[in-house]
Every structure is written in C-alpha cells, then in structure tokens.
C-alpha cells in the first residue's frame, strides 16, 4: 500500500480522504475513527469525536486569503479550555508548507512549527511575565489547559481525543506570537503572527 494507491479505514473500510503526502493522521469521515498513517500501513488510534457546526471563516477544503497569501484548511481540531473552545486548523499555504491556524471568536493566529531547545518550569510561566526566546522578548498573555474534543480531516502529527496539555500564548512586537505547549513532560512551540479577521478574504465572511 502507498500514498498513491490510497488508504482505507481499518475500522469501516471506507476510503480515507488524504490530500497530503506528509500527513501523519487522518479522521475517517464515515465512522469517526482517527487513523495513524505509518509509512505503508494504517492503524486506528481512536475516535474523532463530534464536531458541532459553528460559524467560521475557515472551512475544510475552502481556500482563504490573508494579505495575498492563500491557505487551504485540511484538518480541524477542536479544543476545549476553561471558558470555551477554539479550533486549530492545519492548513497548507501557497508555498506548500503547512501552518497551524488557531481561531477563537475572531482571535486568529497563523503559526509554523518553531523548534526550541530551551526548557522551562511550566509553573513559572505565568500571565504577564516575560520570556526571551532566541533573543526575542515576549510577554505571556494567556495560559490555560486545553483538551482535544473533536477532529476532522488530516494532520501532520497524531492527535487524540481527550489529549490534554498546557499552553501559553507569548505575544511579541508587531503582532508576533509564539505558542508553547506542554504535554507528557515535553515542550513544543510554534511561531507566527496574530491576524486581523477583517483582512481575511473568505467565502464564509457572512457565515
């Protein structure tokens, strides 16, 4: 079996809609299973959960444009946190590279993976405190714990329903943002910019 041959869901046998060669995980549209793609094999790893329809500028498979850059959302993960929920879209940019787009009631950030070697004491990362990463100063503007609630589409890494992690938004100058995630004793980071939703061109503006 190969990417070009296509994959079938190991749970229900339906063809998996997988657009990207480097996707590592895809949610089956039919039986709500999440399937891990491992080289030439597929393995069911969990359920995709129920994704309630909400108005959004971002819809899977529909291109959006921000400042002449286009993005095609191919995966949608919904996370719950203390006061609500937000969507994390895995989208492919015009340059073919993947980006994470977090969307929380008009608070939108577009981020790319950001390799970091430093480690932190999670309990010392409090809202309002400063963090220096690669000579760039940031202020922590949000800190909370998130839990994955639902998945749709495909992703560059395995995500499972119920997975919980702590996160911090680090805001810098000129709309810069770095998101730190802490789960299973490891930090991961992504970096990017906050985006003005009024500058996004989407067929779903009037959603």
């Amino acid at each position, binding site marked *: 079996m190969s990417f070009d041959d296509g994959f079938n869901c190991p749970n229900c046998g339906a063809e998996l809609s997988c657009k990207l060669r480097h996707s590592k995980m895809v949610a089956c549209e039919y039986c709500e299973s999440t399937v891990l793609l491992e080289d030439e094999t597929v393995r069911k790893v969990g359920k995709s959960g129920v994704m309630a329809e909400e108005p*959004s*500028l971002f819809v899977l498979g529909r291109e959006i444009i921000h400042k002449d850059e286009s993005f095609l959302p191919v995966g949608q993960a919904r996370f719950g946190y203390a*006061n*609500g929920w937000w969507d994390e879209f895995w989208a492919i940019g015009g340059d073919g590279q993947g980006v994470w787009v977090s969307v*929380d*009631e008009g608070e939108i950030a577009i981020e790319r993976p950001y390799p970091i070697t430093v480690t932190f004491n999670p309990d010392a990362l409090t809202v309002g405190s400063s963090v220096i990463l690669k000579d760039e100063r940031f202020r922590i503007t949000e800190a909370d714990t998130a839990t994955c609630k639902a998945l749709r589409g495909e992703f560059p890494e395995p995500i499972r329903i119920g997975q919980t992690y702590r996160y911090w938004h680090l805001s810098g100058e000129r709309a810069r943002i770095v998101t730190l995630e802490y789960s299973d004793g490891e930090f991961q980071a992504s970096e990017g910019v906050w985006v003005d*939703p009024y500058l996004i061109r989407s067929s*779903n*503006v*009037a959603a």
Partner: protein
Amino acid sequence: MTETQNQRLAAINCTNCGSALPALAGHRAKALVCSYCGSVMDRHDDYKVLARYRNMERPYGPFTLGMRGEVLGVPHTIVGIVGVAARIWGEDYPWTNYQLYSPTHGYSWLTWNDGHLTHSRKTREMPNLVPNSQFVPKSTFGAAGRTFKMFEQYNARINYIEGELTWVPKLGDQTRVMEAIDPPYGYAVAMGENETEFEMSSYLDQQATLASFGVEDSWTKPFGIHAIQPFEPGALHTGLSRAAMMFVPITAAISLGLLVLGGGKTIAQGQIDNPAAGGSLAFPVTATNRLVSIKIKTNVSNSWAWYDMSLTHEESDETIAEFDGGVEYYYGRDSDGSWTEGSNEAVFRFKPPAKGAYRIAVEGIEKGSDNRPMSIVVREKVMLVRYMVGMFILSLVLAASMWFREKQFEAKRWGEDGSDDDD
C-alpha cells in the same frame, strides 16, 4: 444567519435581581451587566456578582442590546453598551460605545458620537514608533501599513455599562487615550492602569449602518466634523471641479493665443485736428467674420471730450451706427497719495455686415468738451480675448474651490478655523 447562531440566542437570569437578560455573546465575553439592577456578573465564574451600580442613566444612542446588522460587510450583534465621556478644558464630551460580537470576527466597537458612527477593533499591529507621553499634534507614525497623524489626547471615563463585555468594567474607570488619524481610518493608544491597548478604527456611513441595524432614520444627522471623517464633497461640486481642472490649461492656452494673435491688423489710422469742426476717416474692410475695432485717443488732461459719431458703409451709403462716446482723464494727489481716473483712449467694435469701404465720422462735440486733436486707429480681424480670460478665471476659481473647501474642512477638523461653531 446560521442555525447555530439562532440556537445560541438565549437568556439568563440576573443572579442578583432575577431579571431575564439576553445572552448573545460568545465565551470570551467576561462580564454581564444587568440592564435592570446594574449588577456586574462574572461570566467565567458562574455569574458571580462582582459589583453593583444603581441608577445609571443609559446614554443617548440609536442601538439597543440584541440588534443585528452589518459593519464592514460582516454581520454583528450588539451585546453591550458603554457610556464614556472625555473631560476637555473643563467640559464633558460624551459618546456611546456599543460592544459588537461576531462569531467569525470576534469583538469590536460601534461608536455613536454626535451622530457620527465609527467602528473600532483591537489591533496587534503596534506603531513603528510607540507614541510616548509627549503628545505632539500632527506628528506622524506608521502602523498597520498607514501613516497616522497625532490628533488629540484625553482621559476617557466610563459612566454607563450594560450587557456583555469583554472585560470586567468598573464605573468611573479612566483610560488615557491618544488618537491619531488617517481619514477615514484612525489609530488609538489606550493606556489603562494595567494594560496598553491599540485600536484601529474606521468611519462608517451613518445612514447605511443605521438601516442595516433596522434603526429608523429619525436620529440626529452627524454634526460637526469627526476626527476620522473623510472629506467627501458632493457629486456636483466634484464633477464641476474636475471639469474645471481640465478647462484651466485649455482656456489658458487659448487666452494666450488670442492675446498674441487676436489683436488683428491695422487697416487705417489718422487724426482729426479739430473735432468740433468735424472730420472723418475712411477704411477698407476685407473680412466680415471678425470684429473691426476703432480706437480713438485724445490727450485730455483733467478734462473730458465727448463726440457725436457715425459709421457708414460707403458703397451702399448705409449708416451702420450713430453713436456718442469719448474719453475722460483726471489725476491728482490727496492724503492717500496720487490718483488717476479714466483714460485717454476708448475703443468701439463692430462686426461689419459687408466688405468694402467704411467711414467713421465725428459730427460734433458735446458742449464743454476739451477740443483737442483726436487720433484714430482702425484694425480688422480682431478677436476678443476677454471672454476666454473670463472662462479661464471661472475654471480656475472652480478648480481651486475644491482645494479651498478641503482646506476649510481640514481646518475645522483640527479646530483651526478660528471658531467654536461646530456647524
């Protein structure tokens, strides 16, 4: 409008007084202020009552909670109301901020100020030069791809709160605000006690926005000039001014051409030594499609000379005109200095009805005239430049009127028109 939004519409009972309150905002709204008892509740902590403000007076404005309409092409719902006033030179200037919510675009503000409507939203596009406490009017800085001019600074004080808001407000809270403009856009730096926020704003069409929210068109029309109101002259003035701008060079070129070429050709000149005794001068006319000018000159000095004249086409012996005319010239000196009045010259023009010989004749002079020798110069193929110069001046005035009007508009915007009158 999606089904999901409709489903989200709900009410919640005030945890203090029990009144039903609309729950219209999303999860990021932190506070709910009761429209009836003024209790401020924490939406993120089981609507726990944090404070209570009695007898607040709802500010003047056309919107109420729950109204829906489009702003910048995006559907929004009014979820909160905040009354604000700025004290400038001892006087309060009030306005009303309406908290807008859109599930796709988040939270922003619709502001009603003297009938003007603006929309503002938080931006993370900070200025390339962070304005400091040294406010310098008209100094510039760049932000969000635009160049803004510092406009004004003031302390804004909250005097009314209602509905769902993105922060927990306190009545009387003050924020130091510095506003900069690039009409129809604005940029504000709001410095609170613990946080500095940056906002982008844009000027809205009042009537279109009111109509979109279903508000009757009976509200105050915008008065005065808003800080970010764009200069928008009427279509008629704009059209006339643009046309005039095209006519200015055309009429200038034609006027110049007429000045050089429109003087015509001298066809006769002579002198009548004793006008009282009469005299005449004949001249041949070769073109009938242009004017003929007859210039008389008499060197009167602090006196006048007035003649009875006739013009005859000799070949048909037809009298073309009988007329009187003359010159007067005075000069002197008074407390204001030297002065002169009148001229030694007078010009008469006519369009010849036929080619051939004509004769201008002096039949006599008015009683009291200065009877000095009179010289006559006759030119044909004369073109008048004054009408084209008039067109040029009219075009120039019309074209310049737009510039003057905009200057006047800007002077009012900046309070530099020397008047306190807002109209």
